[in-house]
C-alpha cells in the first residue's frame, strides 16, 4: 500500500547540516553588507514585496536559507527581485535589503558562474 493511502505521510528528516552546507554566499554578503546580520526575520520585507505578488519570492525565506547555507532555493529565486526598494523602507532593523540581494547575486556569479543561476 502506498504511503499516501495510509492516512499518514512520512516526512523527510529535517536537519540543518551545517557541515555539509555551503555558507560561502552568506559570508560574502556579511562581508560586503554587514547590516545583513541585523535581520530578525520578521518578514516585513516579504509582506510588502512587489515581486512577491507575482512570483514566489520572499526575502525573509532567502535570508534564512542563505544563513543556513542552503543555497539551492535562493539561487533560483534571487533573480525574481524587482529592486523596487519597498523592503528597505519597511525594514524595522535598517537592513540594506537591496544591497543584500545585489551582493547575493554577485556572490553566486563569482563563485558559481552564470550558467547555474
Amino acid at each position, binding site marked *: 500500500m502506498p504511503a499516501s493511502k495510509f492516512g499518514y505521510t512520512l516526512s523527510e528528516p529535517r536537519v540543518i547540516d551545517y557541515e555539509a552546507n555551503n555558507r560561502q554566499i552568506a559570508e560574502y554578503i556579511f562581508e560586503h553588507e554587514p*547590516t545583513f546580520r541585523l535581520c530578525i526575520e520578521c518578514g516585513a520585507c516579504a509582506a*510588502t514585496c*512587489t*515581486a512577491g*505578488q*507575482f*512570483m514566489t519570492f520572499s526575502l525573509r525565506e532567502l535570508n534564512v536559507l542563505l544563513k543556513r547555507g542552503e543555497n539551492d532555493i535562493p539561487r533560483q529565486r*534571487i*533573480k*525574481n527581485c*524587482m*529592486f*523596487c*526598494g*519597498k523592503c*528597505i*523602507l*519597511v525594514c524595522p532593523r*535598517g*537592513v*540594506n535589503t*537591496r*544591497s543584500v540581494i*545585489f551582493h547575493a*547575486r554577485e556572490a*553566486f*556569479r563569482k563563485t558559481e558562474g*552564470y*550558467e547555474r*543561476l
Partner: protein
Amino acid sequence: MQGKLSEKPKAMKDFDPFVIPFNIGLYFILIYSVVRCVIWFRQLSRADKLRLQRGFFSRAFGGSLKEIFMESLIHRKILKSKPILGYMHMSLAFGWFLLIVFGTLEADIFGKSHLNPPYKAIFFRFFNPEHGTTLLAEVWEFIMDFLLAFILSGLILAIIKRFMPRAVGMKKTTRHTLRDKIALTALWLVFPSRLIAESLTCGAHGSGSFLTGTIGAWLNSFLPVESLAYPFWWLYSLSLGVFFILLPVTRYMHIPTELFLIFMRNSGITTGDRAGSFYEVELHSCSSCGICIDACQMSFVTGITSIQPVYLNKALRNNEDVTEKAYNCLMCGRCEEACPVGIEVSAVRMIQRRNKTGKPLYENRWMGYFRERLNHEAVYNGTGRNLKLSSNIKVRKADTIYFAGCMTHLTPGIKEAMLKIFKAANENVWFMDETEGACCGRPLMLAGNDREARELINFNSDLIWKSGATRLITSCPICFNVFRSSYYIDAEILHHSQYIKYLIDTGAIRFNYSHKKVVYHDPCELGRIAGIYEEPRDVISWVADLATVPEELEKSLCCGNSLANIILSPVQKNLIATDTIKRLTAPNPDIVATSCPLCKKTLSKVSKTRVADIAEIVAEEISGVQGKRTRTASVNIREMVDQLLG
C-alpha cells in the same frame, strides 16, 4: 626688422641643443593627438560619423568654435560659479594660449624670417636677446610680460589650491596618481623657469619690459646672469618636453580631447547606453578639476570621496575595477549639472552598471598611450531566464490610468489625496496597481539589469494597451521617467503635478487658499532628470505661499534615499536626509512640499516640519462644491459601444 646685420654673424643664434627636448615633446604630442582623433573617428558608429561630418559643415561649427573659446579658454562656467577658481583656470588656459599666439606673431614680425619653427617663438628671447628697442617692440614686450604675469598669478592660485583648497572656494581638491604629479610638477615649472630664463637673458643684455627687465636688472646687480641663463633655458625646454610626453597618459589629455568633444557634442552625438568612441572621448576630456567632488552630497555630508565622476573617469582610464564606484552613487545628477566640461557622467556610470562581467571594457597598451576596446560576450546579470509573472489584475477600459507606483503604496496619504482629486475632477480613472502592481522597471534599469526591466515593461505595457487609455498619470517621478523613456505606449504620460496643474488650468477642481508657507523640494528624478520644475511650483502657488531656498531647481539636493544607490548604508542615507531637511527648513516653512513619495518618506523620517506631497496639500484644501466637467459622457458612450460589440 632690427638688428639683422648685427646678429647674422653669430651662427649659434639659429639653433641650440637645449630646444631638442621641447621639439621632441611638441612633435610627439601633435602627431599623437591627430592619430588618436583619427582612431576615435574611425571607431564611431556610421550614424555618428555622418553627424560629425554634417556638424563640420553647418552652423554647429561656429557654435563649437564659440564654445571652445568660452569654455576651454575663458572657462565661463567656472567663472560664474566660483570666480577665483575660474580665474585660475582662465589665466592658465587663456593666458598660455595668448602667450603662444603673441609669441608666434612676435617671432614672425621681429624675427629674422617669416614662418619660423615653433621653438623660435617659444625661446624667442634666447635667440634675440637684444630685442625690444623700437617702440612697437617695446609695446610688444610689455604685452608678453603682462601675459606671463597673468599666467604666473594663476599658477600661484593653483599652488595655493593644491594645499589649501578652501582658499579658492573648493571644499576638496582632487587626489592624483604619481604620473599626474610628475606632469603637474613639469607644468608648474614651465612658467617660473621661463620667467627666470628670460629675466637672466634680459639682465645680461639690458633688454626686457616691466617684469623680465626689472627682475633681470636686479639679478644682474649681484649674479653672473650671462652664465646662469643657459641652464634655465634647458629647464624651461625640459619641463615643456616632459609635460608634452606625459600628457597622453595623464589628466592633461583633456586639453586636446576637449576640443574634439565639443565638436562631437555639438554635432548631436550622445553617450548612449554602451561604451564607444564618444564615451572614450568623454573619459579623456575630464580635466580632474574636482568640481564634481564639491557638488556631491555623498562627499560633503557622508565624507565618501572616492566615487565621484572625477575618480570614476580616472579609474576607467586606468582600467581599474570600478564596481563599487559605479554602484555607490545616488544618480541625483548634481555632478552632471556642475561639470564645466559637460560630460554625461551619469550615462558613463550607467554603462559601468550594465557591464556585468566586472572586467574593464578597455585595455591599455604601450604603457597607456593606446587603448583597445575588449570584446566581451553579452552577459546578463545572472538570470538568463525569464521572470514568470502571474497576476490577477483585471483590466478595465478607461481613458485615464492612475499608476501609483510601489513607493506611493508605502505613503498612502498621496494615494488617498490623488483619489480625492480624481473624484473632485469627476475623472473616469482606472487605478491600475490598486491591489497589486508590478514595478515600473526603473529600479532594475538603475541596477543595470535592462533585460529584466524589459520584462516588467512588457508586462505593464500589455495592461495599458488593453485598457485603451490615452493618458497615464503616475505619482512617482521614478516611474514617470521610465514610462516616458522606455515604454512603447500610446498614452500621454503625466506626473501628478502636471495633471493637477492641468485640472487647475481647465477649472476642473476648485480649492481654498491655505496661507501656509511652503518650501518646495525638487526631487532629483522629476527635476534634473525629467526637467519638470515649473508645474509643481505653479500648483503650490495656487494653494499656498511658496518660499524659496538657495538649493532649488537645478541645484536642488537629493533626499539621500535614491533607488539608484544600492551600496549606501541606511545610516549614511539618514545623514544626507538630515542635511537636506536642515537646508530646506532654513526659511522656517509650515510645510516642506515635494512631489516624490520616496522623498516624502525619507524626509518625513528626519523632519520636525511637516513633509507633504503637493497632491496632499491640494487635496486638503478641496471643498465640497466642485466645477462641472462633461468628460465622463464620452467615456460612457465608449463603454456602451464596447458592450454592444461584445
